[in-house]
């Protein structure tokens, strides 16, 4: 099997980043750095391009979008919808389909997986747009996987994405899409960790949001998660807020999807991670910050099927953008040194206001 259309996370090299998209590149990097990541593979942008070429989709897409007024949302919507239908209705080129089926089969028979779009660097820079691209959880069976890959491709042509590119004069055809297929985590609890305090940019703190089940409930804000602050150097929990976590997203193997359900009363208000797990999540964020040399925003999950101590998995890591950029703006301070510093301290530093 060649690495042209699919590429195992463990084989993604720096040279491949452009053809696997940001999300898969980060998964590849983490896998190779020895971070525990659910196994999987990327469907490369070559596969996407092969699909476009195979059906001569480029011309078709251009035809649909020709003359569309980007400020007329109805027009954009009609064109985008037509393109999505076209992408979904075509069979994949046989070589691409075979590559996906083979890679999927290697993960194990009927392995439940998550299928996520992984946008390339040329794509929408607005981080919040990433969420517009699709994620399918608890997908099972090769047919389903192939279909969801196609759905991810189609998600490049949502109305909003199309309008954005039209307005910013980004050629649609230049924007490529990779798709990640990753072993589904049977998440007992999951969430997000930032290796910086997102409220005030305090770089000595690691802040964790965690809730029961899959992390999507935390990311989307459906539940109020448990919130932990961990001191980054001492790696001690310095603050915790335990919330009422009323719903969770869990895998339904029979229906082949993730379903939302009520959290039973006895689990709602209890801490969803042990203290050791909180510290492990913080350590993961700290490690990824070091590897990437900037504060990170990491999605993670605790896998119910793995033994304690090995059950923490990283699902995604990306640079924190807000405070990392602000940092340069902090005003320059002057410091008193030597004995003048001591005089200054004695005279003022420890004034404690009542």
């Amino acid at each position, binding site marked *: 099997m060649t690495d042209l259309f699919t590429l195992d996370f463990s084989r993604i090299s720096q040279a491949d980043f452009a053809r696997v998209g940001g999300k898969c590149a980060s998964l590849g990097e983490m896998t190779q750095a020895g971070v525990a990541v659910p196994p999987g593979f990327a469907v490369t942008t070559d596969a996407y391009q092969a699909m476009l070429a195979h059906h001569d989709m480029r011309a078709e897409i251009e035809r649909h979008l020709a003359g569309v007024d980007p400020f007329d949302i109805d027009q954009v919507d009609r064109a985008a919808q037509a393109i999505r239908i076209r992408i979904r209705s075509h069979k994949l080129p046989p070589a691409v389909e075979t590559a996906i089926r083979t890679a999927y089969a290697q993960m194990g028979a009927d392995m439940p997986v998550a299928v996520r779009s992984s946008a390339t660097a040329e794509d929408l820079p607005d981080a919040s747009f990433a969420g517009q691209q699709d994620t399918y959880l608890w997908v099972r069976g090769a047919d389903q996987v192939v279909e969801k890959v196609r759905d991810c491709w189609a998600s490049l042509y949502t109305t909003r994405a199309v309008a954005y590119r039209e307005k910013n004069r980004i050629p649609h055809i230049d924007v490529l899409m990779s798709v990640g297929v990753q072993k589904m985590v049977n998440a007992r609890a999951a969430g997000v960790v930032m290796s910086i305090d997102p409220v005030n940019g305090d770089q*000595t703190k690691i802040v964790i949001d965690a809730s029961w089940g899959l992390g999507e409930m935390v990311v989307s804000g459906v539940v109020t998660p448990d919130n932990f602050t961990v001191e980054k150097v*001492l790696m001690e929990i310095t603050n915790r807020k335990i919330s009422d976590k009323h719903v969770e997203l869990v895998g339904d193997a029979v229906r082949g999807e993730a379903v939302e359900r009520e959290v039973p009363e006895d689990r709602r208000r209890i801490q969803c991670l042990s203290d050791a797990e909180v510290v492990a999540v913080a350590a993961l964020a700290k490690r990824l910050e070091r590897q990437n040399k900037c504060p990170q925003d990491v999605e993670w999950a605790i896998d119910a099927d793995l033994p304690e101590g090995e059950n923490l998995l990283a699902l995604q890591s990306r640079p924190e953008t807000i405070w990392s950029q602000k940092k340069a703006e902090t005003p320059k301070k002057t*410091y008193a040194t030597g004995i003048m510093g001591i005089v200054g301290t*004695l005279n*003022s530093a*420890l004034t404690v*206001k009542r």
Partner: protein
Amino acid sequence: MDAKTPMFPSAFDVKAPKGAEGWESLYPYYTRFQPSRRAEDDAKFWFCNSQHWPNPLRPFDVIFLDFAIKCLGQYNSRHLLVPPANGIDYRILNGFVYFSPVAVAPENIEARIPQFLDRAGHYFGNWNDLYANWKKKVLAMIAELDAISFTDLPDVVPVEWVKGGVGLDNTNALFEAYDKAIELSYKIWQYHFEFLNLGYAAYLDFFGFVKSQFPTIPDQAIAKMVQGVDSELFRPDDEIKKLARLAVELGVDGALMSGTVDEALAAVGKAPNGQKWLTAWKQAQDPWFNFTSGNGFYSTDKYWIDHLDIPLGYLRDYIPRAKAGEQIERPTERLLTERDRITSEYRDMMDEEAQAVFDGKLGLARTVFPYVEDHNFYIEHWALGVFWRKMRELSKLLQGADFWAEEDGMFFLHRNEVRDVLWDYAASWAIGTPNVGSAVWPEEVSRRRALVKALASQPPLPALNEPPEVITEPFTIMLWGITSDAIDRWTGKGDDGAGLKGMAAAPGAVEGIARVLRSPDQLGELQKGEILVTPVTAPSWAPVFGKIAAAVTDIGGMMSHAAIVCREYGLPAVTGTGTATAKIKTGMRLRVDGNTGTVTILE
């Protein structure tokens, strides 16, 4: 009219505990709140220093309150001219000690700065040389103190003196010995503060700088960057551990495990390698068993060297652990690595300019810190231990002359009253009559003993009068953890019933069973894995820290002994809770969170 009532009562409205009426007669006039100065004293805020004086003072014990506070003050006010701070005023109320820091008037601060720069600058610039010289001075003084002896007056003056034309008698030596002991201890207290205030100032400067860089950094993290691993304060405990290992190695451990000290040592002596162990045991004692289970400020302090059952008890804890293959030694290598890791991780988060400043301040803090830690061994443990031993000899000698019925009787007299007793002893000896004191002091000592006992029945008020808007005195904050938060804790603000707030002094969180200990004599009750709850700890309790799961104290700040030792042992500690020993009972289940400074009573 200002209708605001002060947060704490006036000293003049505080009643004596039942049975302690008339306690004022125990202490000199200058230590008491005098009604004729009520306006001045009521205008000041006083906090109880129960960290250093957790129990009511016996009259003799006023000596080190006098010396310590006078000497602390002289360095701030007269030697170094610390710009904003003079000394700390002190009073005794119901047997307990109250402090009130004396600030320099704002308009006078500026003028003190040049002198401070010159004087303190000299110390900072020549720290290591001056400190080496300090050790020499102190060791010489300890040797002098050690050479003092008190002997009964003989029936007759030695005939050689008579024939040699000496023309004097044995009373001179007695007076001189006493005066010299007092004078040496006074000098030792001056040395105690020669470097201490500066050491704290440099530490506070580093502390303040790191806080300005990382406002939320835990205080304990800053302490960890500075704290050493080879403080002399750890040596006594280390020696016991070495002796435990040696006992196992030489096969004399069994002999040590039972019987009284004499029985155990005799059993070791009979064992094949016993003499070798006994030599090591003897060697470790000088100076390392000059180690008190208290803090050196009380005549009741028990020093290991005088109570070998204490170190033997610790030895008996360590031996089975050493045999079980446990690592009983402090992991100094790991502690140093950890200190370096913590330091460099925070440093990495600073910009380049701040890093350079950080390096400078950290360097100075680390230079001064060994003194901050080690002086305690040289002064409180070693020198004062020798002093108390000499004073006990004298008390026993005077007991033999019927001044009091018990061997500790002298400690119920003020040091100047003892001088009168010596005169009485000398004069009656010379005149050839019974001394007057034997008809006066036995009854008076009993009366005073009963008063001190009655004073101990009532815990002290944490503070008097109205706290200031701001607390600025750096030593007050550093040493006693007196911050606005602490004052709120004393008044019960922010107290939610099931929990106690204190200082987050050493990281970690655990649950366990409480063991409330009010005195070092109870240390034997402590079971492995329990949470130690106590008014205050002392360095010599180090061996028990290997047994406990966490420590909670009523008194103490970031740099209190419990905090330092817990950080060293990796145990959670919450210090300065104010009321832990009152609210917690032995056997209660607790959660101690040393990261947030909270203690929760679970059941």
